[in-house]
């Protein structure tokens, strides 16, 4: 993992809290989620809200490592954490091309128990359930998933 860079203030009042990367190796989603949790420790995100953010970061990072980078360790997943006065953003970027891959099917537990759906495919569902908003972009070189949490005037840099 590259070391998180120290925070810097952007002219547009958005404050970068951390930028780092993790190699695309199984299990590194925990490293990503713990590093993000450390980066937001000065914001008022605690308890269940922090756990929800961590789960969303872990699932998006897993998806990036697996589907974007095919678990090639030499292909890093880049993570940028920033906050304004009203919003926390975590951007997770892989080296995939084309539309980002998620299981498109909405998970239906009853169908899974009956063998009509694969037991897998919970990642996108969990992410959407854990954050206020999510934005997915992609081009021929990268996919980026942006996770957004609405804040109530917590970030220092936004005022």
């Amino acid at each position, binding site marked *: 993992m590259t070391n998180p860079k120290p925070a810097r203030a952007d002219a547009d009042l958005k404050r970068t809290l951390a930028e780092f990367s993790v190699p695309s190796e*199984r*299990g*590194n*989603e*925990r*490293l990503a989620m*713990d590093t993000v949790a450390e980066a937001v420790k000065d914001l008022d995100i605690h308890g*269940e809200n922090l*756990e*929800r953010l961590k*789960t969303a970061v*872990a*699932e998006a990072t*897993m998806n990036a490592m697996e589907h974007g980078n095919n678990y090639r360790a030499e292909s890093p997943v880049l993570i940028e954490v920033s906050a304004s006065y009203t919003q926390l953003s975590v951007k997770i970027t892989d080296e995939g091309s084309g539309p980002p891959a998620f299981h498109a099917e909405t*998970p239906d*537990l*009853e169908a*899974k*128990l009956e*063998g009509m759906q*694969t*037991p*897998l*495919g*919970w*990642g996108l*569902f*969990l992410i959407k*359930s854990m954050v206020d908003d999510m934005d997915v972009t992609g081009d021929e070189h990268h996919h980026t998933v942006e996770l957004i949490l609405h804040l109530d005037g917590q970030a220092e840099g936004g005022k």
Partner: protein
Amino acid sequence: MAVRHLNVEVRLEPNVAVLDMMGEINGFAEEALNTAYAEADAKDTKTILLNFEGVDYINSTGIALIVGLLAKARASHKRLLACNLSDHYVEIFQITRLSDFMSVLPDEQSALIEASVS
């Protein structure tokens, strides 16, 4: 950060086979979880209890593994219970609807009582 691979121990309580899980429930956990479930299933109880007390991380692949256990339990007409989940994972069991199909109890004692009265 090293992955905490799942370790599962199986024990028998009156009418309940208990899986004591320690570590992370993720893609690495499949063999440990399925082997332990098969051992618990062989104890021929009507109820199998998943004890999450030693589990601090479950990802979407882990959720899929638990769905697989639930499918096995339903196929063999056994009841699957869960206990000692953190508040966060209780929420995840609710939003995935796992808790609609397996009772989630706060602790082992509650789970054993639940198993004995139903």
